[in-house]
């Protein structure tokens, strides 16, 4: 079972691409809208040092941006 968290904003198309990718793969994920959720934004910053979305946490592997090869490699 994969534990996937996506930090996203509603206006970010690469976040949408990532989510669609997981949906077509039939993989469940938790989404945090960091435009609204201040605590999640802090979490994202701590995990990645990034001020840019998407940040994807797959089983503890942090991936910045929707980098498909990296995402595929991190999935179990």
């Amino acid at each position, binding site marked *: 079972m994969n534990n996937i968290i996506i930090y996203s*904003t*509603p*206006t*970010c*198309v*690469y*976040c*949408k*691409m990532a989510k*669609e990718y997981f949906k077509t793969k039939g993989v469940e994920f938790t989404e945090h809208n*960091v*435009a*609204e959720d*201040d605590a999640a*934004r802090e979490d994202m910053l701590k995990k990645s*040092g*990034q*001020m*840019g*979305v998407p940040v994807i946490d797959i089983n503890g592997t942090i991936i*910045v941006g929707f980098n498909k090869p990296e995402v595929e490699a991190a999935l179990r």
Partner: protein
Amino acid sequence: MYELVIIGGGPAAVAAGVYAGRKRIKTALITESFGGQSIVSNEIYNWIGTKAISGLSLAQNLEAHVRDHGAEIIDGEIVTAIAKIDGGPPTGHFLITTKSGKTVETKTIFMATGSRRKRLGIPGEDRLDGRGVVFCSTCDAPLFKGKDIAIVGAGNAALEAAVDSIPYANKIYMLVRGSEMRGDAVTQEKIKSHPKVTILFNTVSQEVLGEKSVTGLRTIEKTTNKATDLAVQGVFVEIGSRPNSDPAKELVSLNQIGEIVVDHKTQASSCSGIWAAGDVSDVLYKQNNISAGDAVKAVLNVYDFLHRNHLFAANK
């Protein structure tokens, strides 16, 4: 050996792929991804035949359409070099090399490689990319809630970055190189009168400051040569784009800004066997619909070229 290789994945490349498929030209399409630059648009209202469509949906439609028309798709690849073999067509051909080292041989090439975002080219920009330096304002504006930011640029993209940021940022500096802003007049008025926005004319950026994340932007006011450090946590880079003509630059004529010069009747470049359309070409108006139409022109002319020079295999 292909009869045509299309390089790119935006509207021009896809239109070419569809027409090439219907003409039974043996075609490969090489692209990093599909959709072109409009992929980041929330809604597109001028793609003809469709009232409104998101950039992402447009990208998916384009990919599905071209995949349905028989071109061999080589995606996830960037073309790094194009070389003439035996003098190039019509007698010879081309050898295309990708970043991963793949090689493809073809009789003709259609360049639909578009353009990419310009970077500032100043210290700190690369190091702090994603740590306060922003290249997708639409994506990342909400992350700068209550923070001070600087937007570099004076065109529509910069204006839109300001519109995206106004609901979130505390204070917005806009750095304008010249003495006036460009871009849509209505949006300009809206931004100029907004209390959060300060426009700095004749001002250029010199260095992005900060250790782990952006803490400031060093600027120079050009008329007085005075340096000022703006205390900002975000630097949004919106200074336009440059054409992706590099792989062909030794073979075709480029204009001053690096666009491929084409014959606007046929989209042929100065190099026999290479055509171009869309943002990489010297077309006056950069529009999805125009890119698609120009690409169709190009492929019909490729078809004529293949026939005229007895290079076309499908009906032999």
